[in-house]
């Protein structure tokens, strides 16, 4: 039997890809979601419909299906061959941006009409109003649901094991079948728990920083 240290190290190696996917997804999907949310709130109908279709498709189908599609399906349909890692990045960014779009849109829409009116009465234009008045207030509203997504995301990264990326889950599974014992699963669970603990507390800290006003 391999010793616990070696097992742990092997599973921890898988954390590299999990963390990479996690970081890339958050880094790109949050700005993309913000842009799409603002796009959805513009009066441009065709843009609204396009974004509606986008969020419907990506929120309306399983992430795993999307992952299979971009890794296997795209190649069959178009001949474009993405690396496993690239397929995972693109799928996760598009999928999470769709959720963030809806979270941010709802957050922006929750800001009272009176805030826009006060800004307008003071001579502020639309972009000044959004940048200085609406979005800073919307951030406070969207922090809790964004934190939820951020926790879900680290667990969703486990789906990449289905396209044979050597992440935490895949390495844990291979350890378990090799050693015929469940230690690998426990180590994986502990790793996920440590990561979610860190994420939860980062968001708690940010929320606290926004608690200076009601």
């Amino acid at each position, binding site marked *: 039997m391999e010793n616990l240290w070696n097992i742990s190290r092997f599973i921890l190696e898988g954390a590299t890809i999990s963390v990479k996917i996690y970081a890339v997804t958050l880094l790109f999907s949050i700005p993309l979601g913000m842009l799409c949310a603002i796009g959805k709130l513009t009066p441009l109908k065709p843009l609204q419909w396009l974004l509606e279709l986008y969020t419907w498709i990506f929120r309306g189908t399983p992430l795993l299906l999307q992952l299979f599609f971009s890794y296997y399906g795209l190649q069959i349909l178009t001949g474009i061959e993405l690396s496993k890692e690239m397929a995972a990045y693109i799928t996760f960014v598009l999928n999470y941006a769709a959720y963030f779009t809806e979270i941010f849109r709802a957050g922006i829409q929750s800001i*009272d009409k*009176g*805030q826009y*009116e*006060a*800004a*307008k*009465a*003071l*001579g*502020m*234009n639309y972009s*000044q109003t959004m940048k*200085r*008045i609406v979005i*800073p*207030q919307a951030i*406070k509203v969207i922090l809790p649901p964004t934190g939820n997504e951020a926790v879900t995301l680290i667990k969703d990264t486990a789906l990449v094991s289905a396209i044979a990326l050597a992440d935490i889950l895949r390495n844990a599974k291979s350890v378990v079948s090799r050693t015929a014992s469940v230690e690998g699963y426990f180590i994986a669970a502990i790793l996920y728990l440590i990561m979610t603990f860190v994420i939860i507390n980062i968001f708690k800290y940010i929320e606290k920083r926004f608690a*200076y*006003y*009601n």
Partner: protein
Amino acid sequence: MEAIIKVENLHKYFHSLHVLKGISLEVSKGEIVSVIGPSGSGKSTLLRCLNHLEVADKGSISFEGQFIAKADASGKAVYKNNREVLAICSNLGMVFQNFNLFPHMSVLENIIEAPVMVKGKAKAEAVRIAEELLDKVGLLEKKDAYPNQLSGGQKQRVAIARALAMEPEIMLFDEPTSALDPELIGEVLQVIKKLADEKMTMIIVTHEMNFAREISDRIIFMDDGQVVVDGAPAAIFVNPDHPRIKTFLNKVL
């Protein structure tokens, strides 16, 4: 006297509801005009049309001779482009019933935001003016507080200071004391009175009849989307010859 605001034959519909039915009025520089009348008579809508918070359907609105909206041949209100309208309307200060302070900004930040962002004032200069205005409304010691730490009366005084910081030519008050507890109304009226003493041009939509009577040069009584009487306070409060005013005053006084 020079008209600062001129409204001609203004009509406004909310879907099929005809809210303003041909309003015409002029306000001169330095004049204080109160708009009174029953709920739903169109007072607030009229005020909100003046600074483009509502879009009028027919008629003209001009500020110091510049048209914000001008009636075309069919009477339809044709607005200037948004940027021009915004630029003209920034000469009109507005105070809302619900204050609409920016909750994520301190009192001082609320006041300097527009002078810095819109007028491009240097921050130090904006702060100096803001502190002067806060002193005037009696809230200098609250400059670092956030709106949720203030009482309703204090919030409204900050909102007045915020509007004044843009150095408006005219102040519009949309029921400034209607959301306040009775004991807090006085402090806000006092600030408005101070402005009146300084000859600030003002249009005040209000339910405070005694205040309107005391402060105004002119009273406009509106009912059912129309100006019923536009005259000196005495004409309305002392000898109301119009039956609709009598009914209204009997209810509120």
